[in-house]
């Protein structure tokens, strides 16, 4: 299961497994984003290239307006995926 929500502080919370069959739900939220935002990965167990594609497209769109996503609280495996994809050079990861 995958879920995406925005808390009262505007932080985007990802939960569960973001795979190719769930990516449209993530795209719905990220495509409506027009300001810098923090994305909390603490409860995200799994991500594949489908999820990375949504994040890449969002970051590219936001950067054109001088804004960006900041990604926080990744688990070790998810962080490894970001490094292999060289997304650690594209996103601020904390």
């Amino acid at each position, binding site marked *: 299961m995958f879920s995406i929500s925005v808390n009262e502080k505007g932080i985007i919370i990802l939960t569960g497994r973001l795979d190719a*069959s769930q990516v449209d739900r993530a795209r719905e939220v990220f495509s409506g984003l027009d300001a810098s935002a923090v994305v909390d990965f603490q409860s995200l167990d799994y991500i*594949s*290239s*489908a999820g*990375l*594609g949504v994040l890449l497209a969002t970051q*590219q769109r936001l950067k054109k307006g001088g804004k960006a996503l900041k990604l926080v609280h990744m688990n070790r495996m998810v962080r490894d995926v970001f490094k292999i994809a060289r997304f650690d050079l594209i996103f601020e990861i904390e």
Partner: protein
Amino acid sequence: MMRQQFDRDIRSLDAVFSFLRRFADEERLDARASYVLDLAVEEFFTNIVKYGRGTSNEVFLEAVRSGGTVTVRLEEQTPVPFDVTRATQTQFDVPFAERKPGGLGIHIAREMLDGLTYDYVDGTSRITLTKHLET
């Protein structure tokens, strides 16, 4: 050895992951190996769904452990071979604004796996993934 047939459909992914989870549980795979197999199989399965040239609607998955090595095979009937090991490499040397996600999944899978082979025999296409387990 475990083997199961899946419809060539993105909606089969849940069943694919269930199959891999059962295999991981039976073989007591560690979390890292399990993640790598999930990711690699997802990337190649979705590739087959997107670009499938197969003549039937089935994709077979087979998983086996031999000592410290796990092998997972994706198999389909197709008249057109497509060697995923020769797929276009992700371009990392382009400016950020021009980066595209194409090829990224196969790149990540290759980096995390210990082996990736492709063979095509008598109309059957086989992608074989291997992962050595940490001791």
